[in-house]
């Protein structure tokens, strides 16, 4: 199974390493070489430097044959555009995208790809902790 990870920050690089450990073939794309450093010293997979909206880069990274695309650059709008490209242009079976802004995450929720909002997750988790304490 082949995965493409767009954005190799804290989230993207950790995802890439975990997928690799689980036996996936993983290709990573990031805007800077620092993205490669975050993958550790002996990253065995492919790594491409460039912008996630560059379709020549995405094609060189094998998006057309990917089973899974995970998008987690630091830009919500870049992420949403890349996710839509992966789904609509390359018909990738499973696409998941990180979107910080809960409002935009909600608007793009039902378009054939999964939208994960860490902001929402944090709000839910913290609210649960706070309100649990209050109730007891």
């Amino acid at each position, binding site marked *: 199974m082949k995965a493409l990870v767009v954005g190799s920050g804290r989230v993207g690089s950790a995802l890439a390493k975990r997928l690799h450990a689980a036996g996936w073939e993983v290709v990573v794309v990031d805007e800077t070489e620092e993205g490669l450093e975050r993958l550790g010293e002996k990253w065995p997979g492919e790594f491409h430097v460039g912008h996630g909206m560059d*379709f020549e880069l995405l094609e060189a990274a094998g998006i057309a044959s990917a089973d899974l695309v995970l998008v987690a650059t630091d830009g919500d*709008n870049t992420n949403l555009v890349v996710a839509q490209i992966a789904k609509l242009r390359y018909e990738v079976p499973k696409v998941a995208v990180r979107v910080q802004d809960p409002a*935009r995450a909600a*608007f793009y929720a039902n378009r054939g790809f999964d939208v994960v909002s860490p902001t929402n997750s944090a709000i839910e988790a913290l609210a649960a902790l706070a309100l649990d304490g209050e109730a007891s």
Partner: protein
Amino acid sequence: MSFIIVVGGGQVGKNVTRTLLELGHEVVVLEQRRDRYLLLDEEFGHRARYGDGTELSVLEGAGIKRPAEIVVAVTGDDEDNIIICQLAKELYGVSKIVARVNDPRNQVHFDLLGVAPTVSATEMVMALVQHEMPQHELVHLVQLRPENLEIVEVEVGKECPAAGKRVEQLRLPGSARLISVMRDGTAEIAVGSTELRAGDQVLAILEPGGEPELRRLLVGEKKR
């Protein structure tokens, strides 16, 4: 008078805003960079607002729900322009949008996601540059994306099927029509009896994709 929201207050957004105001429209311009916003505020006062125009709350603060009649997305980031237009159309029901394409390689994404019409300064400059070059063969002058048509300029080749023929004798590709023929600096509307000669500059309108056939007919086989 229309209510128009301009997102992005750089050179393009600022001049668009000024021109729209001069024409008597109601305009709000959004800018997320503080330094640029302050300049806008100096010139446009309360019509300039500070904030990220891809945030729903900022768009709503600008009055997009009234709704705006036109949203103009002219930031320097193509991903932002795409998202602004998707939000405007699909979430707020804005019927007309105009989007700026900064990097022409991103045009395919705007097309894929139905963001139209678009304007690309690079494409427009390139069309004019090629237009001025001697011995160009086929140049795209205007893209009419909503209509799925384009206007091209072709120089009639020396050894092509069309040279020496009248327009009515040509077997033009299905969707293509000739608009005008320019010879020795004078242009005429192309009619059935217009004769084509090598060196003529011909304007044609056609559906994208018909260029190779039009090229074979008017330019001839490509020299290798």
